[in-house]
């Protein structure tokens, strides 16, 4: 293998199919066959055992089983003692084997998928399997086929050498991405000839970065050509919209980027599980204490014997150990005897319970989103109960609190504001869809009555109708990112339309380009939106029939309108009527119904009515960011339709109907550091190089230059006005973007191009160099204008936030937006209330930051300590911007900041970077030692999601990175309410109760054995048959607690939602031992210890009542054990029955089933086993007991006495009378 020292790998361009193995130049690279299985058939048992013994508990139990083989200490028959641990190991091994087998099957299926590889022998592409693909092969992928390995794209069917891929298999993003052939390798023949390729490809070592790749090809003439990720087709992607593509395999099999990204599931340990270990530790201490008592007792007992009694059995050669040695051995015997104190099946049971809990969470119909057809996904399997303990929520804003469906709302061009008042009308909620049918059939002419100022009511309602309808259509089409017609709902501003038409007419006469036109050109061009035809395969199947009819009708309406205006007769092609989900034409064509109707129509007619419908009507835009799509749609609304985008050209149709083809010279893509993107085009008419830049206002404003000296003052005014408008937009909660233009001179371009090429070909520091070139060019920009885009709040967001806050959860919002925007949204979603005291922290100096912090802290302290403010708790909110946040989070201010934040009801962080987001989460989590939850939807939230105890991804509009990184994925912010308040509460209480019960159960049972030691000379005798002991834990009492952990409902879902305060019982507890039954009043006992005491009490009762009843009788050892075992079973199950809050059929079946199973199994066992399992020999013991009335009398009495203290739980003394029932009654009375 030619790994080179600098971390690159070389592969020679050879086709290996048809070559002998030894001659393959790339034979050292791994093949494309993948193997994700962990085990092989032969080595399964040793490897799996090795895996399992990583668990400490397993080692412990195996150690005990082995200890049992030492004759001097064994308590049971050694073979029998192996059974429980073997059962546990086998169950786990079976589960692992099944999973591995599934992996094996899917591997085999994948490896045998057919693909086309070039064969040198046959001089053509032949069909082979994925596993036959080797590094260096030429592979041909056809449309909609999955790429078998990482391919360097060399040739595509597209003449411009581009290839669209969909990466949903890798990151879940469904939008199309563009890949282009490696430039400069001159393989531009229409038919690709692999054998003509004779370069050596050198690329970096395989890594898991999906967004980065670099390599170069060295031609025979030593010329090097570089390529990056834009030429790499990743394994697992699907080729779309491209007939076929040929690539050269650079990474295969496990070295492909997608395989390197398969790290398996994330393992998070829940808080409860961590605390569980403390309880296990207590149990270990308890066990050791009990064993010590046993050992000491045995020693003293032996000491007290005067001579050797007949019941003391010497070892095989007649020798008796000294009392001290016997006592020492007895310690180990006791460990074996009492080992069950450490619950062996607890871990397995917890896993089962969590699987059950996840089953119920994912099946909750309330967490299902109709629009996206998605349920809640649980990716982390073992932290369900953490959902019930959340104290801090960190939320992203865009896409999380808001829809992230961007709608163009306002714009400011050259310092003039166009408020688009008409758009606001659409905002009114309207639910009756009938309205569409009510108002559509009106005669068209009423709708464009020449009403100049206000849109009349019918008009409004009609807008409503169409808006409603298109939303429906949008949902049907939602699989296609941002191409839903919702974004197209832009009603052009009348004034602006006039302005454009004026500009158009003037510019057509003079060659000077008007800034208005430029602005819209920038809107249409300056983006990375991919245009796809609605007729493409990716489109969803057509909208419901009703809508179709409606659409036809509206289309006709539009047609007639157009012809009415322009007085022309037009025909509409058939497919525009029958196909396509786009409802735009009617909306737009109706719109110009104002005084300028005729004039407007001259703008409109060509683009809307005159053109074949397939071109403009069926266009759908796919953008990586929803803002871009919104802007393109806005441009389209004004007649600047983006028709096509290829690698090196953009076609825009102007309002005049003229198609302009811009040659794209370069695209300076968006990055979070520059916060802007640019596109460099050559204007088809003026032939000038024009750079359009769009970006965040603060990123743009400082780059504004003064290209025209004369306009300097004018420019400044524009900048000031625009800034003013931007501020206004932000206050309204709109997202703002600035647009600029720059004319680049030929000379400048030439010199820049050289730099750019050098940067692109660089192998090292490529990113930095490329960015530097971008920064070089983006200077001296001239401002065109700004846009305000609205991002609607998701439904029920304010409700959810209020409920979460009532539940005692602090909600922080971290956003990259401007403070004004963020504060506005904060009020809208009731994060901030009007009566709140809002502290604004925004400064540039460390010193100021310190003093502000100190002052505020002092003030807040004084405020909260002031006795006058006890009743009037004014809530404090903190708004802090990114720069200040950095200072506040510095190590010396951290504590003060956290202290202040702790006292604030809500915190709003603006303009924060992804890294800051995660840092905030980390600081709060570590400093305050609280449970944190982060929720976000975009790639910028990934850090935060991973830093929090629980990360929640919202599967929204911004791809799937957040969902991929998250522990739970939901589709709406409002689902958080039920997920936390109901499922979180349930999961937590259920699991905590079950774990406590598990400990209780084992202690109660094992202590019976312990008490017996006092009556058998501490000799380690068990009075219960060992098989029955195993069955007791494995079968008779294992299912009820699992069911309890999965299904118990302590409080109903309605009540949990109605009284969010109930959530608080899960919070602030440092361990489950402090898990408090808050609803039982003021019993602030630690439940774990109460349960332990209860277990001791119950075991005492269960032992001593039978003991006293059978004292000085002729009862034998195992007959004595039988009622004890039975009583134990009843006590343990009835104890659980008291804990169960809601009995369903399943509960009854399982509890009664367990009792019945006990009797059936024990009766069968003692009926069939005549001489088996010495010395216990249970033959006919239970039968004879069950024929004895004393047995029943003892069982009843003991069970009642054992459970008597439990009544305190059921009936607390009246001063603390059940607040739960109070709540319940008051809730239901409301």
């Amino acid at each position, binding site marked *: 293998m030619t790994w080179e020292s600098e971390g690159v790998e070389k592969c020679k361009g050879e086709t290996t199919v048809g070559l002998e193995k030894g001659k393959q130049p790339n034979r050292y690279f791994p093949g494309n066959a993948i193997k994700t299985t962990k085990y092989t058939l032969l080595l399964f048992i040793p490897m799996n055992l090795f895996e399992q013994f990583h668990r400490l508990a397993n080692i412990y139990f195996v150690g005990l089983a082995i200890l049992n083989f030492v004759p001097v200490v064994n308590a049971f028959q050694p073979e029998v003692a192996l059974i429980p641990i073997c059962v546990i190991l086998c169950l786990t091994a079976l589960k692992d084997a099944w999973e591995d087998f599934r992996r094996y099957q899917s591997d085999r299926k994948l490896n045998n998928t057919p693909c086309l590889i070039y064969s040198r022998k046959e001089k053509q592409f032949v069909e082979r399997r994925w596993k036959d693909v080797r590094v260096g092969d030429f592979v041909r992928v056809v449309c909609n086929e999955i790429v078998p390995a990482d391919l360097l794209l060399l040739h595509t069917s597209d003449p411009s050498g581009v290839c669209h891929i969909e990466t949903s298999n890798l990151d879940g993003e469904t939008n199309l991405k563009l890949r282009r052939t490696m430039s400069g390798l001159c393989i531009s023949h229409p038919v690709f000839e692999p054998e003509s390729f004779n370069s050596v490809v050198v690329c970096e070592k395989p890594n898991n970065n999906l967004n980065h790749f670099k390599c170069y090809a060295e031609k025979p003439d030593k010329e090097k050509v570089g390529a990056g990720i834009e030429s790499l087709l990743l394994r697992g992607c*699907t080729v779309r919209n491209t007939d076929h593509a040929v690539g050269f395999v650079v990474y295969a099999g496990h070295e492909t980027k997608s395989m390197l990204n*398969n790290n398996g599931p994330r393992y998070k340990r829940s808080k409860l599980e961590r605390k569980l270990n403390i309880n296990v530790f207590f149990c270990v201490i308890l066990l050791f204490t009990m064993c010590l008592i046993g050992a000491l007792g045995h020693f003293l007992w032996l000491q007290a014997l005067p001579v050797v009694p007949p019941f003391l059995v010497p070892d095989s050669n007649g020798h008796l150990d000294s009392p001290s040695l016997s006592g020492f051995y007895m310690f180990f015997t006791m460990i074996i005897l009492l080992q069950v104190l450490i619950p062996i099946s607890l871990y397995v049971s917890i896993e089962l319970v969590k699987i059950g809990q996840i089953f119920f969470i994912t099946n909750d119909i309330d967490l299902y989103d109709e629009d996206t*057809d998605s349920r809640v996904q649980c990716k982390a399997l073992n932290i369900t109960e953490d959902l019930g303990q959340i104290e801090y929520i960190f939320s992203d804003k865009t896409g999380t609190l808001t829809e992230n469906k961007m709608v163009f709302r306002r714009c400011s061009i050259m310092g003039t504001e166009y408020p688009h008042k008409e758009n606001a009308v659409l905002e009114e909620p309207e639910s009756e869809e009938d309205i569409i049918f009510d108002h559509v059939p009106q005669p068209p002419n009423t709708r464009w009555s020449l009403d100049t100022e206000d849109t009349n009511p019918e008009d409004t309602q009609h807008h409503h109708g169409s808006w409603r309808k298109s939303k429906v259509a949008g949902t049907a089409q939602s699989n296609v990112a941002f191409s839903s017609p919702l974004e197209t709902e832009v009603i052009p501003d009348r004034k602006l339309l006039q302005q454009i038409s004026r500009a158009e007419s003037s510019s057509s006469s003079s060659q000077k380009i008007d800034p208005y036109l430029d602005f819209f050109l920038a809107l249409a061009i300056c983006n990375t939106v991919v245009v796809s035809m609605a007729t493409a395969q990716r489109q969803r199947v057509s909208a419901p029939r009703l809508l179709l009819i409606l659409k036809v009708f509206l289309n006709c309406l539009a047609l007639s309108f157009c012809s009415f205006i322009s007085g022309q007769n037009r025909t509409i092609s058939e497919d525009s009527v029958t196909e396509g989900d786009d409802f735009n034409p009617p909306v737009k064509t109706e719109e110009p119904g104002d005084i300028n109707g005729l004039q407007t129509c001259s703008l409109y007619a060509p683009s809307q009515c005159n053109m074949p419908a397939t071109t403009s009507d069926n266009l759908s835009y796919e953008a990586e960011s929803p803002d871009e799509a919104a802007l393109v749609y806005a441009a389209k609304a004004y007649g600047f339709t983006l028709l096509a985008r290829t690698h090196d050209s953009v076609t825009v149709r102007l309002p005049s109907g003229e198609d302009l083809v811009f040659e794209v010279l370069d695209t300076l893509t968006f990055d979070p550091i520059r916060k802007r993107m640019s596109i460099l085009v050559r204007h088809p008419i003026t032939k000038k190089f024009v750079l359009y830049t769009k970006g965040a206002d603060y990123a743009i404003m400082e780059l504004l230059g003064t290209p025209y000296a004369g306009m300097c003052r004018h420019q400044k005014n524009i900048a000031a006005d625009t800034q003013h408008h931007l501020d206004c937009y932000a206050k309204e909660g709109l997202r703002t973007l600035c647009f600029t233009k720059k004319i680049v001179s030929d000379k400048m371009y030439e010199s820049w191009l050289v730099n750019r090429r050098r940067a692109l070909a660089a192998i090292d520091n490529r990113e930095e160099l490329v960015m530097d070139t971008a920064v070089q060019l983006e200077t001296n920009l001239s401002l065109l204008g700004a846009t305000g885009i609205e991002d609607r709040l998701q439904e029920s967001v304010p409700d959810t936030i209020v409920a979460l806050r009532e539940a005692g959860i602090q909600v922080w919002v971290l956003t990259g937006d401007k403070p004004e925007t963020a504060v506005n949204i904060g009020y809208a979603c009731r994060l901030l209330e009007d009566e709140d005291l809002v502290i604004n922290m925004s400064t540039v100096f460390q010193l100021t930051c310190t003093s502000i912090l100190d002052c505020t802290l002092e003030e807040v302290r004084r405020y909260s300590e002031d006795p006058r403010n006890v009743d009037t708790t004014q809530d404090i909110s903190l708004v802090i911007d990114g720069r200040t946040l950095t200072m506040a989070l510095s190590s010396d201010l951290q504590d003060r900041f956290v202290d202040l934040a702790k006292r604030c009801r809500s915190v709003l962080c603006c303009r924060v970077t992804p890294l800051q987001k995660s840092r905030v989460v980390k600081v709060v989590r570590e400093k305050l030692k609280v449970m944190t939850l982060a929720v976000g939807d975009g790639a910028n939230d990934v850090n935060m999601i991973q830093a929090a105890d629980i990360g929640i991804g919202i599967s929204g509009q911004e791809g799937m990175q957040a969902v991929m990184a998250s522990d739970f994925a939901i589709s709406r912010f409002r689902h958080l309410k039920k997920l936390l308040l109901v499922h979180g509460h349930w999961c937590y209480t259920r699991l905590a109760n079950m774990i406590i019960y598990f400990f209780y159960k084992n202690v109660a049972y094992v202590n019976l054995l312990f008490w017996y030691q006092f009556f058998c000379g501490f000799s380690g005798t068990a009075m219960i048959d060992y098989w029955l002991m195993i069955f007791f834990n494995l079968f008779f009492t294992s299912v009820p607690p699992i069911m309890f952990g999965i299904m118990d409902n302590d409080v109903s879902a309605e009540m949990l939602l109605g009284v969010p305060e109930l959530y608080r019982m899960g919070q602030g507890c440092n361990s489950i031992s402090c898990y408090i039954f808050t609803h039982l009043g003021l019993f602030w006992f630690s439940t774990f210890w109460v349960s332990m005491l209860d277990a001791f009490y119950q075991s005492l009762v269960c032992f001593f009542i039978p003991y006293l009843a059978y004292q000085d*009788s002729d009862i*034998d050892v195992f007959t004595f054990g039988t009622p004890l075992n039975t009583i134990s079973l009843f006590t343990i199950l009835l104890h659980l029955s008291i804990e169960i809050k809601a009995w369903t059929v399943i509960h009854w079946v399982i509890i009664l089933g367990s009792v019945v199973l006990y009797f059936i199994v024990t009766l069968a066992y003692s009926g069939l086993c005549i001489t088996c399992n010495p010395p216990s020999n249970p033959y*006919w013991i239970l039968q*004879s007991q069950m024929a004895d009335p004393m047995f029943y009398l003892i069982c009843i009495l003991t069970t009642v*006495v054992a459970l008597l203290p439990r009544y305190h739980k059921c009936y607390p003394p009246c*001063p603390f009378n059940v607040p739960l029932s109070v709540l319940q009654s008051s809730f239901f009375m409301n």
Partner: protein
Amino acid sequence: MMASSYNAKDEDGHITVSGPGGGGTLRGKKPENTAFKQQRLPAWQPILTAGTVLPAFFIIGLIFIPIGIGLYVTSNNIKEFEIDYTGVDMSSPCFNCSQNFSWNSTRPCTCTVPFYLEQPYESNVFMYYGLSNFYQNHRRYVKSRDDSQLNGNVDSLKEPSKECEPYAKHDGKPIAPCGAIANSMFNDTLELFYNDPNGTRVQIPLTNTGIAWWTDKHVKFRNPGGDSSNITASFQGTSKPVNWRKPVYELDTAADNNGFINEDFIVWMRTAALPTFRKLYRIINKTSSMVPTLPRGNYTLEVVYNYPVRSFEGRKRMILSTISWMGGKNPFLGIAYITVGSVCFFLGVVLLIIHHKCGNRSNSADISN
């Protein structure tokens, strides 16, 4: 996890091709709206409040107290007489026998213990021997037996189980029955005489069968070679337990009570649960309905004193008892039932008073009833 999800997507990748619009299956992921999956199964919520708990207390009280009284009365009606014949005191008749002891002394020591029964025993009387401080439940003692040998397995007879060590072989011959339990078998002989007021000493007939569990005698314990008449031959080649005076096949003369199925032996082999225990020795059957089984008067217990208990500070007792449906005399259960019943009743009253007094404050609890 990720691998599998990735693969899963690959698998249906081709389906996606045909358009993500199997329009009919658009809502495929919608969870089923069933009561089970939505956790809305009809549930009974036992809200335990005054209304439910108080009656429970009273009911427990009302049921337990009569049961307790019944048990107490029954227990009291059982007649029981116990006499300790260990011979610890100098004055005790068995003192001499208890002093000089060895397991294999040839001359049996006999002592006579007189006693007086104050009440006549009407029904069948069960004669027990009782041992104190004898830990038959010691772990290694309990194990020291070979059940398959006792079940008549010839192989186990020849080669006793390892559990029997060091009482498995003696002088190279297998011990039958092997093990410490058998070796330490109780071997006192007790005989009961009634001293008629007219001076004659009448020996009371003691039945030595029917004292073991039926299943033990007929299923668990079997002589090797089945029920063949020649039991001596069956045990050919085995040795008697070290402490025994005669081999197992000479335990009794009757063929159906000899060898392993000797009931004294079977009773001994059922190891006692607690260090102070009694074991059924003989049954005195009621002969006629007219005469009490054991009339009031003087009796003599003749003991062939073999069994040493002084080494572990134990005691030996002889117990005469009638039995009822609840077994031997034990007042505990009756008292316990009465106590628990009374406590519950009392608690019920107390809670009722509290509830009544705070009724105004906690009437909310009644609402939810």
